[in-house]
């Protein structure tokens, strides 16, 4: 069975073969992709309280504002307030923030198909707001554009993000890791991407 171990461009061939065999759903993005061009006209919503939403007139953040001229580590996960996301995926990114900064990373971003108010409350619960920038992709448009969605109806979550991570420089993907099973944190963890920067 083709594995989804992704490190650099060789992943594309593995993914294409998997797709041809019908064994795996593959992402539209790979290393070298410009993430802003891959998702044109897409915005994310910065995690916020309702009052902050009112004050900002419920503004959203276009992708280019997040990625242009920046070194970004971004990771996506199935759902705020779910077990693996809360206990295994987010904490190591938070705990290693100094290491990311030492490597010149401008921001570490966490994104999920949740609204920005839920993301904000969750980020506060995890005490991770200082280290990580949390964004909502409330209608899934970001993840759908990148083909990084998965059907988690079995867990009563509906269409959600895959579990994934990426290192993006000035909008270009330098490393991309997509978890084979959304319930695992193997390739999409903080330790793996630290080694890819």
């Amino acid at each position, binding site marked *: 069975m083709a594995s989804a171990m992704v490190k650099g461009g060789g992943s594309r061939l593995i993914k294409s073969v998997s797709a041809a065999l019908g064994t795996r759903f593959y992402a539209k993005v790979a290393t070298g992709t410009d993430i802003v061009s891959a998702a044109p006209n897409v915005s994310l919503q910065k995690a916020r309280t*309702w009052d902050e*939403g009112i004050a900002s007139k*419920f503004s959203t953040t276009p992708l280019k504002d997040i990625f242009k001229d920046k070194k970004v580590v971004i990771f996506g996960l199935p759902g705020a307030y779910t077990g693996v996301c809360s206990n295994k995926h987010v904490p190591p990114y938070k705990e290693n923030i100094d290491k990311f900064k030492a490597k010149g990373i401008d921001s570490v971003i966490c994104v999920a198909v949740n*609204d920005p*108010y*839920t993301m904000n*409350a969750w980020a506060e619960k995890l005490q991770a707001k200082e280290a990580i920038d949390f964004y909502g992709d409330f*209608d899934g448009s970001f993840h759908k554009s990148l083909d990084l969605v998965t059907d988690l109806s079995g867990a*009563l979550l*509906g269409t959600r993000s895959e579990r994934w991570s990426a290192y993006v420089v000035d909008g270009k993907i330098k490393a991309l890791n997509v978890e084979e099973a959304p319930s695992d944190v193997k390739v999409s963890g903080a330790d793996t991407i630290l080694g890819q920067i």
Partner: protein
Amino acid sequence: MAATIAVGDVIPDGTLAYLDDDSKPQSVSIHSLAAANKVIIFGVPGAFTPTCSLKHVPGFIERAEELKGKGVDEIICISVNDPFVMNSWAKTFPENKHVKFLADGAAKYTHALGLELDLTEKGLGVRSKRFALLVEDLKVKVANVEKVGEFTVSSAEEIIKAL
């Protein structure tokens, strides 16, 4: 699009979700909770938003004993959120004894009630209007649907008057 639920209607059946004591997602049918019972179903636009968290839910939590005393068997809060979010939001009300928080993640039940509200501009997507229903033996006795942005008719205070 379903007509808005009204007094005299039979409440539609539908499946809502919750997390059990082992934090596993489970489903429950509305009819299984409402058949042969007196139930209050109140809907909120979103978990972790202010009016819902600070006014609407607390009102029902505070008056739950009173409502039970007047023969209400179930007090159900529904929102277009997933069961993990609903479960975590419910935990922010540690004083809650009786209100059940049920998730209508894909807005199917909200749609069946004709109570959808498009809050895409606020970053919420399609949600539920704010409302409160009193249902006896599956028949809607009271249907209080709030105007957008307000909090008056859908409160616990208002529905108690009907009991």
